[in-house]
Each structure stands twice: as C-alpha cells, then as structure tokens.
C-alpha cells in the first residue's frame, strides 16, 4: 500500500443519535442515563442525551481498518482525548492524516493524527494512531 506523509484518509462518517447509540449500548452493555435520556444529558450540560466516548473510540478503529482494507496492516496504537461529546442530530466524522513513516522491528510503521469532528468542523476527540504494514 502506497503511503506518504500528508496523505489524508477517507473519513468515516456516521450520524449521531439513538439508532447508533442504542446498538452500541447493546453490545458494550453501556446503558447509562446520559446516553439514553435527554433530561440526564441536559443535567450534565448538554442539549440532551449524548453519545458514548467509547463509540467515537470504535469509529477511530473503523477509520483505520477501512483505510487498510485489503492489506496485511494492523493497528498498533490508538490514543485520544474526549474534549466534547457527540450530540444528537449531528454528523460525526472520524478523520486521519499521515504524519510519519518509519521502519521498526521488520515492520513499516505509519503514524497518524486522528480526530473526530462534527459537520461544522468542531473537534470532538483529538488523537494519534500508529499502524503497521509488513515490509
């Protein structure tokens, strides 16, 4: 797979809201009022119920896997900080850009900046990732 510094990954875009949150809550057993009830989300300072940080975490992994599809690449490292929650009726995009390429222990390691944002560019969770491809 051809990779170069500055390469922008195709974004992983999903609608924020109960259809996605309910499904994720069901597999992660994450039934918490702030993710289920508008009153609880509002009490926490949001417009209503808001999405799980863990789901944004999963979206980072989906972003990387989708980009590496068809290769023998693997995810080595992912990290992020949750700065803002994803609120209903917004579109969340997980994005990434290649920041470095290096060789280590027989693998080609690719470092990336990754982040999630909503449709107006407001950042939700900035982060970094490293993936590896066999040499």
């Amino acid at each position, binding site marked *: 797979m051809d990779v170069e510094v500055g390469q922008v990954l195709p974004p992983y875009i*999903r*609608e924020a809201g109960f*259809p*996605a949150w309910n*499904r*994720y809550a*069901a*597999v*992660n*057993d994450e039934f*918490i009022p702030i993710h289920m009830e508008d009153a609880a989300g509002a009490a*926490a300072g949001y417009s209503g119920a808001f999405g799980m*940080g*863990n*789901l944004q*975490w*999963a*979206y980072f*992994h*989906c972003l990387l*896997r989708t980009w590496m*599809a068809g290769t*023998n690449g*693997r*995810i*080595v*490292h*992912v*990290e*992020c*900080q*949750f700065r803002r929650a994803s609120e209903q009726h917004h579109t969340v995009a997980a994005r990434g850009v290649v920041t470095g390429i290096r060789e280590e222990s027989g693998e080609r390691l690719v470092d990336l900046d990754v982040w999630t944002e909503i449709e107006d560019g407001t950042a939700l*969770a900035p*982060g970094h990732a490293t993936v590896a491809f066999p040499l």
Partner: protein
Amino acid sequence: MPETWITDEMRAAVGGQHSDRTSMPISVSDIRKWAQAVYYPEAPPREYWDEEYAATTPAGGIVAPQEFNPFAWMTAAGPPAVDALGQGASTTELRLGVTPPATTNMLNGGMSVEYTGVLMRPGDVIRAITSLVDYAERELRLGLMLFTTTEQRWTNQDGALVKVQRDVLIRY
C-alpha cells in the same frame, strides 16, 4: 473547592491492582453483533460475519475487531450482584478500600491502547487486570480537576498479551 482532591490515602493506593476479570469464551455471534453496531448503518466488513470468507483472510478465520469488549454483560464470574460496583466515579477507590474524593461530576478523559498483534478469536478467554497508575490535578475552567489514570493488561488463555490500555477519568 478543596486545595486538593488527592488524600494521603489515595496517594498510597497508587500502584494497587483493583480489578481482575475473566471473560466468558468469545463467540462468533458476539463478534458479529459488535461489528454490526460499530459499522452501523453500513454492513460490517465480510471478515467479521462470514466464516467461509474469513477463513481465506490472513487471520485465518473470524477475529474480533481490536476495540471489542469481551467483558460486556457478564464475565466468567457470572451475573453481577445487584449491589455490585458499576462504572461509577468512585469505583477505583472503593475497590481499593480507599475513601473516594468528594467530587460530583465525572468525564471520560481519554484512552490510549497498545495492541500487540495477538488477535482475539472465537473461543478465547480474556483476562484483564486493572491497576491504579496515577493521580494528577489541574486547575481548569470548571475548577480543580482530578485526573485518574488506570491501566488494563489483557491476556488470553495462553497468557499471551493482547493489549495494554490506559484510561483517564476526569472528576471535579
């Protein structure tokens, strides 16, 4: 607002192991449902639901997405007790037998994971040992914020390390 949220008792608890969980054996169905949820509304990649196709991939079969949680719903210990500690703000201190800070709010501060390349496969039993790594404080817009870092080490039934994950809980 206190001058510090971190008591001597809390500081002395750093390094303590507060959780040791073992999963039920991972099932193909668990993996399929997880993949359907995180790829919704699109269908997940075929290697997460088609066993015949997955057998032709480098993984040699269906394997779990890296962020998969094998401890959801129930661990090998069985259904959690009605009064079991959940994912509350004070869980770490209470498990360590320490008085928790008198904070009233909590936020997920972030996560950091190193994957070893050892995959989680159907039938695997995963063990996660969680330790308290650090307490730190910062004065921010919402006041004095307590940052608590814990570390989980996941191994499979063969003792192979699957991943090391650090989680940051923010309380104020």
